């Protein structure tokens, strides 16, 4: 299935070649979890602080159980803030 | 082992924690105007430069003092003795780096003395822009090079 992976701020360095604007479309196996995608791209889990799936917050604790579906956008940030 | 303050302006954010720590330790209050270290703010060049005494070997300030009020301690640090300083300010014009300054409220001069081996500015710096390290280590030569250049220009190469 196809998903979009977006890695921001310091996580941007973990994006595979071909990524643009901090995003890349990926073909992942059906039923892949958030954790699967992150592991596949060697993203250190301990700094995955803010995880949004289609803009909706996914607590890091459910990353390994939450399965993605076709067309999902997974966006991840390290600990950041602003205002 | 001789220790020295080594400054990396590339890491400085301009927060002035060093000035606050210095003035607290030396003056008992937060007062950047009386800090022995000053952060220069080159706003248009996106650069902040902490600046203080390099404790030159053959110190201009010390040589110029008419009353022997500046001495070198066992670590090579030049110290001002307030009880002897008369406030003539000759050292302030003699130091080509401008790092010994007149303190109008005490009538004496003030300069960095590395806090007796435990510099407060180093502890206060949040980004390790100021570190205290063995002079033999890399990085120090660069700092001294500037001092040597000044010496050479005056034709008074320092005797090591």
């Amino acid at each position, binding site marked *: 299935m196809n998903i979009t992976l977006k890695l921001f701020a310091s996580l941007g360095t973990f994006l595979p070649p071909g990524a643009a604007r901090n995003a890349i479309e990926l073909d992942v196996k059906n039923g892949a979890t958030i954790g699967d995608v992150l592991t596949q791209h060697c993203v250190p889990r301990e700094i995955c602080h803010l995880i*949004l799936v289609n803009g909706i917050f996914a607590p890091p604790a459910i990353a390994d159980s939450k399965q993605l579906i076709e067309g999902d956008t997974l*966006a991840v940030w390290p600990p950041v803030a602003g205002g | 082992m001789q220790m020295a303050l080594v400054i990396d302006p590339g890491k400085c954010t301009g927060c002035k924690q060093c000035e606050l720590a210095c003035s607290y330790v030396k003056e008992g209050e937060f007062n950047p105007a009386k800090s022995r270290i000053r952060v220069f703010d080159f706003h248009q060049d996106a650069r902040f430069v902490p600046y203080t005494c390099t404790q030159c070997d053959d110190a201009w300030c010390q040589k110029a003092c008419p009353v022997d009020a500046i001495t070198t301690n066992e670590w090579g640090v030049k110290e001002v003795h307030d009880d002897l300083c008369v406030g003539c300010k000759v050292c302030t014009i003699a130091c080509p780096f401008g790092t010994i300054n007149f303190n109008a409220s005490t009538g004496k001069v003030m300069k960095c003395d590395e806090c007796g081996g435990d510099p407060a500015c180093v502890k206060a710096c949040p980004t390790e822009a100021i570190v205290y390290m063995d002079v033999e280590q890399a990085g120090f030569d660069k700092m001294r090079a500037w001092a040597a250049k000044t010496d050479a220009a005056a034709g008074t190469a320092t005797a090591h």
Partner: protein
Amino acid sequence: MGWTGQVMRVNLTEGTCTPEALNMEWAGEYLGQRGLASKYLCEEMDPRIDPLSPDNMMIFATGPLTGTCASTGGRFSVITKGALTGAIACSNSGGYWGAELKFAGWDMIILEGKASSPVYLCIIDDKVELLDASDIWGKSVWDTDAWIKTRHQDPQMHISAIGIAGENGVLYAGIVNDLHRAAGRSGVGAVMGSKNLKAIAVRGTGGVKVDDFLAFMTATTAAKKVLAGNAVTGEGLPTYGTQVLMNIINESGALPTRNNRDVQFEDVHDISAEAMAAPSGKDGKPNLQTNQACFSCTIACGRISKVNEEHYTVQNKPEYWHASGGLEYEAAWALGAAVGVKDLDALTYANFICNEQGIDPISFGSTLAAAMEMYEDGVITDKETGGLALEFGSAQALTTAVELTGKAEGFGKELGMGSKRLCDKYGRPELSMTVKGQEFPAYDPRGIQGMGLGYATANRGGCHLRSYTVASEILGIPEKTDPLVTDGKPGLVKAFQDATAAVDSSGLCIFTTFAWTMEDIAPQIDADLPGDWSVDRLLEVGERIWNLERQFNLQAGFTAKDDTLPKRLLNDAAKTGPAKGLVAGLDKMLPEYYELRGWTKEGVPTSETLSRLAL
């Protein structure tokens, strides 16, 4: 203690500068800065006065931690009746100016009346005098800064000034200190301009002492460790600045785009922190040059940027080739997504102009967005704009408009009125994205519900900084709440409002609260000041301040009807993103909020509440 105990009262009409003792009783009840100065304002001024008349007072106030080594302890606020809103205004700024005022020996500067000709206030320790500013009237903040330092031969002076926007009566003119830190909001710069006061220059060589140095050093050192150890304040903010929010808020479907018609911006990446840090331009260097700290701040989130020298905005203007204050999130939103512009250099240039001429970029961008929508609708035409095509997405329109606004030339004069007056003038009040006359910034309440209540009830008008529930709703600080629901938000908003009022009165920066709780803050204040300063006392002070400000606004003529949001947010659902189909649920939150506050259904504090808070 952290106070010098001295206040300078300047009567601009009479040309007098009279020192007086700080009211320590009030300081005990209102802490300092925002709270304490508001108390002075409420005690001494009729809230019904015209903000641009000589009757308005303006107070530059520090907090008890300003000038100390407490991390971020360098802030000050400008308190007055806002030119833009007519509500109580408190604009908070960092940089070095506030601490310098303390070092000069002054806790606050109270300004009254109006000078007969342009003046600047020059404070060199205990020497305070009004000096002729006719040579700098008409000059930018940047030129004023240089002129004053040269005039007094002291590069270590710190200057807080208005640019030409404040002189020209731009209603959202701000006051800029240290070249790019600003008391930006609510039109405090317009008030300053109306008083013929160009600048306040300060040089202080005195010291600040605290009540108990040993306890203070222990408390501040521990608190600094918390900031350094926290991933947000220790790494995220210094590296990416507040601008890292751009993609987060867009992903969350809460990025107000094209005058809040949309909640996501398709070109968001081009104006984000990630874009600022990416190589660009002919030299391959990024827009972002470095980060900068304000006085005493161990976070250092400030952005120092450069505009690409080949960009159309500056290609023939080498005077803009240097580095200066770069885009913060709200500015990048206002000059970018709000008007649909994706040209980062254009945004950076517009931001430079805002700093240089003393313009609040939030209000400017939002006002321009409303104008663009009216231009699109044909309500405003080339006839009014003088041929300037105010099209969404046009960088040229943005950069020309910001220049014209400062100068109050052509259509810039209209833009300088602010969104509310502009939309009223052209018969489209519903297009003004304002609360109490002030443009709210970069968070669409349909996607972050708590912010809707925050905007509606903010005492200085539409504002994100009075209760930044984004921290909880999006970033999970101190704990995660769902941004799409209204449940629990009244309590959350009240808690943020009260705590923020206390922090804003202390001399600290609100950004510390990404890592600090009140448990980290209270010991620092406690060691700084005489008496016991507990978390409970601070929160009570915060609530007292909130109610005092509310009282001012009620007396100034505001009512519960003003605690509302633009109809677009209440009636038109978000079109995309997680909030798709949602409107701002203000009606579900406001009554509960009033109740939690101890206010009547009409939004008036009950006598019980007032007496509980000793008001």
